[in-house]
């Protein structure tokens, strides 16, 4: 470039940079605004509300008290939805793992060229309406079908599955199983199969090979899958409402009661904040675990 043109060229370059920065800003603006108004603002509001008190007619009145937290953390009765959610989510995670691991192993190692088909067959139910898949169990487990059948078997006319923790657990596993299988499949599919053969050649039995070779390799996928199912199970609302007849009272249901029925926004907000904390701790632990000892994030799905 000629020396004389330095100033206009620099001007043009600066103009270009400003225009480029403006474009960047405009590209990110709508999504950023959405996050600000519909994610950060609501979360900020419930965090502030969680320190407040219930207004006379319901809602929120400004205050700064820790009562809402103290009530949950100090009173076993009030903490019951949390322990119920926690045990349901843990049970559901174990259930999905027991069903999902062999399936993922089957697809990764035995399905051959039909892998894509098997995965598609997992995606299809996952893609269809969660609500419909949930209520379908009302028919399956109802007194007219499986519930009544088992009732006849055990000779108890009052035998019911619906409205019990078992129904909710089935719903949870059914609803989230694919989330467990996907990451497990991805890790198992990448596994070097010669390791298994080497292990067998070295005289390890099937169980020892599974425990010492396959399982450690599948571990990142196993952890990812467990987190992916645990988190939504912990905050589940629809399944206990439908399959638990609302009798199985989890955190999600407690939140709805607080906000809409009792109209005690501060109490509900405190529960929501605690629930978010449980999620963040889980995810932080997960990130730490997956990135432990390595820089890349090849298996980090979150």
């Amino acid at each position, binding site marked *: 470039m000629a020396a004389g043109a330095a100033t206009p060229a620099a001007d043009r370059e600066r103009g270009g940079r400003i225009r480029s920065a403006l474009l960047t800003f405009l590209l990110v603006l709508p999504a950023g605004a959405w996050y600000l108004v519909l994610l950060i603002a609501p979360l900020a509001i419930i965090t502030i509300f969680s320190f407040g008190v219930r207004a006379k007619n319901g809602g929120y009145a400004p205050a700064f008290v820790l009562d809402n937290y103290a009530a949950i953390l100090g009173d076993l009765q009030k903490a019951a939805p949390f322990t119920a959610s926690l045990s349901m989510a843990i049970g559901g995670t174990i259930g999905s793992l027991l069903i999902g691991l062999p399936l993922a192993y089957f697809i990764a190692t035995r399905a051959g060229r039909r892998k894509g088909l098997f995965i598609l067959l997992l995606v299809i139910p996952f893609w269809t309406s969660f609500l419909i898949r949930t209520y379908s169990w009302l028919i399956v487990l109802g007194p007219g079908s499986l519930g009544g059948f088992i009732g006849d078997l055990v000779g108890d006319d009052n035998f019911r599955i619906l409205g019990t923790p078992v129904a909710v657990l089935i719903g949870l596993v059914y609803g989230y199983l694919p989330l467990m299988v996907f990451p497990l499949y991805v890790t198992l599919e990448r596994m070097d199969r010669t390791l298994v053969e080497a292990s067998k050649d070295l005289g390890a039995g099937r169980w020892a090979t599974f425990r010492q070779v396959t399982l450690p390799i599948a571990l990142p996928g196993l952890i990812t899958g467990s987190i992916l199912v645990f988190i939504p199970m912990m905050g589940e609302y629809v399944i206990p409402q*439908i399959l638990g007849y609302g009798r199985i009272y989890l955190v999600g249901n407690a939140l709805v009661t607080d906000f809409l029925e009792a109209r005690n926004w501060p109490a*509900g907000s405190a529960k929501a904040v605690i629930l978010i904390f449980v999620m963040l701790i889980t995810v932080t632990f997960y990130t730490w675990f997956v990135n432990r000892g390595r820089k890349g994030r090849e298996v980090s799905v979150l």
Partner: protein
Amino acid sequence: MSAPALAGESAVGRLASAPRRPQLDRGGIAVEVWLRVQASLVYAFLYLPIAIVVVFSFNANSLATIWTGFSVNWYPTALANSVVQNALANSFIVAIPNAILATLFGTMAALGLQRVPRRVRIVFDAVTYVSIIIPEIVIALATLVLYATGFGFIEDTFGIKLRFGHVTIIAAHMLFNTSLVLLLVRARLSGMDRTLVEASADLFATPWRTFRQITFPQLLPGIMAGFLLAFTFSFDDYVITTFTSGPGSSTLPLWVFGQVKRSVSPETNAVATIMLLFTLAMLFVGQFLLLRNSRRTQGRGGAGMAGMIAEQR
């Protein structure tokens, strides 16, 4: 299981003329059988309940769970129900703008995030993940509180009365969907062939032209998958919708929920079947378009939409 063959090749005595790949012993056969039986059972477990909903939508009996005979009457009955008609219309009124805007905003953000400083990107990423991780019920109730508080404030200050309706549902759905599109398009961007962009610039194409002719076509599968996912999420969503809807803006899932809380009727099943067919059609359209476009997805097994979802989640 079998005695340790530590000596390797010298274990010939036991396995006689053992081939290179060891033949299956009884335990091995058991494992093979078990893996297959288990897989079949899991697929039955996944599809049976859905199949039952479809089958019982053809039940002549008005009690959903007792089969008395075949009938297609529940479909015209359901479609003639004005409440169902309204709910169906509302579902589209909500899902279509939501999907368009979320796809637009998510794609824009994915492109913009390539150009921002690292620190901004990290913050943005963190917020994106938070929007996906936080349970739906928390987002739904927090948004409800925001709307209620915000509307109260606006009425007190400006005297304008805002109401819950389609717009409040769309805005709330867009949060999750924008994040979803953002992640899908970014996955696409990071797997993109950069040299093409450079080549295009070297050949004196303007940035806009490079975007239109090089970048955009490569991103299209991600954008399309994002659009279909956003539409389907919105079309099927119950939790966020129920807490952000107002009178007259109930969508189909809200109607279905209200029905099944009382009892499952064949009419509900018929509506559910229509919903299932519709979302499945979307999935297959996406799958078809993606497979046609999957020349570039190296090593992804050409699983199209399915692979995309499986790897994204």
